[in-house]
């Protein structure tokens, strides 16, 4: 097993490329929930039933003719990982906190480039997740659809003619699809338009959440927008609706950026360079402040006010400054204070590397 490959590098291979509209959209993700017919859902499954699920999924994974993206994919069992390693996979959005902490016989299949992660025995038996850089929800859906077809050719799913794919939670029934896009909206936040925007989004059946999903805080002006309805609409309709709404959000964010540029350029420039200054010089920095400053610098890069730092460096920093990552890198447990020091160190290092690369 080559787990270090998945935990040592902050950026997944897929994230290194530049996706469409990547000045505002960080990533697009589609997740579909599936269950095997004839076995209780993970919550009630016995230990042997849960390990049977893993066995069947692993067999399907090894079958000839599988999609190319799964050719060198590995199945990693949660029981084989340390708490820190699990945490890092959560910070990279490859697994959910639920799989890391609460699953029994939980496992994940990761593709080499980490664009595909398939969780086994999370809330449902199988959750296929496809992550793409930038604004590409349709592409993510197409890949998830293809992988789903493959698993379905090997496994029998729990399906009802009227209710569709049967899931553990009634909020996922039907298509089982959750499509989401991670957006960076600093200008809408600065101009205080988010509290008008978010209720409108909720009204059209979409949800807005913090970057680590449900219940998580919004850090660094990053938000996850996703569909709420999974029953009664076709997958394509669900994905297209999300796309349409996010396209409008992108426009609003652009307008807000232009307005700030025109109305208070010097203040904006000052704020961005101050944040950059703090990040390049601080010796102690909390995760919250780091995310806020990184958001400013990211905005500066996207608006052409800061050069010498790639947006990828910022994406990377947003992951490696998380607690799990810092500790894996340091190869030891760190308390909050030690983490704040390491974090500052890491950021300074990355930023000066970025400059050297230029």
């Amino acid at each position, binding site marked *: 097993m080559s787990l270090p490959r998945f935990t040592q590098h902050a950026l997944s291979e897929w994230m290194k490329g530049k996706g469409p509209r990547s000045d505002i959209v960080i990533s697009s993700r589609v997740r579909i929930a599936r269950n095997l017919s004839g076995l209780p859902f993970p919550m009630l499954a016995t230990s042997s039933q849960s390990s049977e699920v893993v066995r069947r999924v692993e067999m399907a994974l090894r079958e000839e003719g599988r999609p190319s993206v799964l050719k060198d994919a590995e199945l990693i069992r949660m029981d084989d990982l340390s708490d820190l390693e699990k945490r890092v996979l959560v910070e990279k959005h490859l697994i959910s906190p639920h799989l890391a902490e609460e699953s029994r016989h939980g496992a994940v299949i990761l593709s080499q480039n980490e664009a595909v992660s398939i969780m086994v025995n999370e809330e449902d038996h199988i959750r296929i997740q496809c992550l793409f850089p930038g604004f590409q929800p349709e592409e993510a859906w197409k890949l998830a659809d293809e992988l789903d077809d493959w698993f379905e050719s090997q496994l029998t799913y729990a399906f009802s003619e009227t209710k569709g794919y049967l899931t553990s939670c009634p909020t996922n029934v039907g298509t089982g699809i959750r499509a989401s896009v991670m957006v960076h909206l600093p200008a809408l936040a600065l101009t205080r338009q988010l509290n008008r925007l978010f209720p409108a989004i909720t009204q059209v059946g979409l949800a807005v*959440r*913090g970057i680590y999903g449900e219940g998580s805080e919004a850090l660094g002006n990053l938000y996850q927008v996703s569909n709420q309805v999974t029953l009664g609409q076709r997958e394509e309709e669900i994905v297209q609706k999300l796309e349409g709404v996010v396209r409008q959000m992108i426009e609003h964010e652009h307008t807000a950026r232009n307005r700030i540029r025109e109305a208070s350029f010097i203040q904006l420039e000052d704020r961005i360079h101050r944040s950059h200054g703090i990040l390049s010089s601080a010796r102690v920095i909390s995760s919250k402040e780091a995310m806020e400053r990184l958001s400013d610098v990211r905005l500066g890069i996207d608006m052409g006010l800061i050069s010498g730092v790639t947006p990828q460096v910022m994406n990377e920093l947003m992951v490696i400054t998380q607690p799990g990552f810092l500790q894996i890198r340091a190869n030891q447990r760190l308390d909050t204070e030690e983490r704040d020091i390491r974090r500052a160190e890491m950021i300074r290092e990355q930023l000066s590397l970025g400059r050297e690369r230029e």
Partner: protein
Amino acid sequence: MQCQECGKRPATLHYTKIINGEKNEFHLCEVCARERGEQMAGMDSGFSINNLLSGLLNLDGQFAEQQARPAAQAQPLRCPTCGLTYSQFSKIGRFGCSDCYDAFSAQLDPLFRRVHGHTTHRGKVPERTGGKLRVRREIDKLKQEMATRIENEEFEEAARLRDRIRDLQEKLDS
């Protein structure tokens, strides 16, 4: 700008509230905002669809219980396969197995309507378990196409479609 509540921390939450037709502006820091329970949509924790779900279900639960009362010692509604009772389901908001959908079906449609606005799946159909539904969908599609052909007076093509529909229908009935 400082927080108007504590006067110490910088205000990060700004909003306007109309109280009795009067406009009030608020500038709060996060700590004070949280204390006042004034949080922005999407930024709070815990108030999600999944948490609300159990509330929605409990509504149904109470309703179901009232309905069941007259029968006095009626057995609790229970999934025969996994043993989960409806009242357990309404507490945790999760099904125990796929048969729960049948076991609780009478209670579920109102819930689905509230959560999704729909009660019937229109999306993807798996090849193995969805065979008949696939055929039925194909028939519906062909029927629509046939209607258009007839409207356009393309009767030859319409007849061909009619035959295909008949074939599929036979396959379905057999």
